[in-house]
């Protein structure tokens, strides 16, 4: 079995938002909608303070609460763990948005462009009318993965089969791949470092790992 996951090394992320821009460019999401965000967090109280950059987005949970509540079955899970939305089935009830503990979903009800009335070339090429009035979220660039694997490429290792945010990361903070491959880079990365997943108490088993230090857990 294959399960694609993403790993963010919080020690490496510099908060440059290049992943955010790459996602925005590649998926032509409307203004105000960002499938890949990087939180800029200030934690603690002076003088004991920390600043942390945390990439967030759909966590492609093994037990996705969005899929559980979706009344139309538009939200589904592929066999490789990627959680998808069928834009032709979704009724735009927003219930999945309420069910997501990661605030990863969005819905816009009218066509808008980044710079007013005219679409940018990226928007003209990639923005779809069928995403208006339905829930949208990060897809782990499933189309790229599918196109790449069809050509025998390996997601996470070959850029043509890897999510845009991972390709664009300037510091190597983002990694992507199959966690079920015991000798693969993701399994190795997680075995050699300490990590956490967000809101694990909800039982969602997110497919997004955050490395915070070296050494085994």
């Amino acid at each position: 079995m294959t399960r694609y996951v993403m790993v963010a090394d919080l020690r490496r992320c510099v908060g440059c938002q290049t992943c955010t821009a790459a996602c925005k460019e590649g998926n032509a999401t409307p203004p105000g909608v960002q499938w890949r965000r990087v939180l800029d967090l200030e934690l603690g109280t002076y003088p004991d303070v920390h600043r942390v950059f945390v990439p967030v987005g759909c966590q492609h949970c093994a037990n996705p609460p969005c899929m559980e509540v979706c009344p139309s079955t538009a939200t589904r899970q592929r066999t490789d763990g990627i959680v998808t939305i069928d834009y032709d089935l979704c009724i735009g009830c927003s219930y999945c948005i309420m069910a997501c503990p990661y605030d990863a979903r969005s819905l816009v009800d009218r066509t808008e462009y980044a710079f007013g009335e005219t679409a940018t070339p990226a928007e003209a090429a990639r923005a779809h009318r069928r995403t208006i009035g339905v829930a949208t979220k990060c897809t782990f660039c499933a189309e790229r993965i599918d196109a790449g694997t069809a050509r025998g490429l390996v997601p996470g290792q070959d850029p043509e089969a890897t999510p845009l945010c991972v390709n664009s990361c300037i510091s190597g903070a983002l990694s992507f791949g199959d966690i079920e491959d015991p000798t693969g880079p993701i399994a190795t990365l997680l075995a050699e470092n300490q990590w956490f997943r967000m809101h694990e108490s909800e039982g969602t088993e997110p497919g997004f790992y955050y490395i915070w230090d070296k050494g085994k857990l």
Partner: protein
Amino acid sequence: MNQSMASRRQRYWDLRAAGNFIGGGTGTGLIITAALAAVVGAPFRLALALGLGFVAAGLSLVWLEIGKPWRALNVFFHPRTSWMTREAIVASGLMPLGLFAVATGSTAAAVAVALLAAGFLFCQARILRAARGIPAWRQAEIVPLILATGLAEGSGVYLIAGAHSLRWLAFALLAGLLREAAWLAYRAGLAGTAAAAPSLAVFDAAPARLARGAQLAGLGLIALPLATGALGVTFPGITPWGAAVLAWAGGALAALAGWGVKALLIARAAFTRAAAIPMVPTRGGGGNPCTANLAALRCGRRVRSPV
């Protein structure tokens, strides 16, 4: 760009969605009360029809809110796990059977409709409970609160409809007290959940206090004519006509208080979860990045997260 980790108020379900919970709660509460009336031989058809109207109005409001209203029938596709699908399925049985009960005056049909109404109300409560992204809805005590407030609103509207006998006053008072207990349990549950702090602030603000005041005043207005009639206690100025006015006002406040609380719960007090960062990263070059004047920034330390 600085993106905060703080939770934010959800912006997708507005007063139209709240209207579904208001219409559904009041309507099903009224249908259940009407079925009880049918069982004891009291007139029930008008109340039953009114209850169905509330439910239909609520469903119409939520239909106006969804992004693709012409695909609304897709809501029936996921009964295995979705409480929204189950709500729709129950509603599709509730409406025709309810109309049949209204048309025929059948007590058996009214009781069957009341069972479906209870199921519909339960589905609405579970819809909120399943919303894991909203701590104020995720709270387990939301289920008894939605059930109790639906019954309190419905029995209140039944008083407005003119049923002022002691039996219905007692029923409305009991439903109101149940709601009061459910509300206190819900608030206590929220107070024990760190992620619900912004919601608690909403419930401590003036609009929520006004709704709660109306709830308590409604209970008092219902209790007064009940005490006058049942216990023989006399109050200055409480004539039979005055008692009817008090019952009417008490019923109105019972319903309005529930509507206000639900509007706040759905549209104002629903905040998303904040990001949860249990550990901060170890950073820095060299042997030990946590030395010198960075000593205070102990690496890999567990942080207190708001969630």
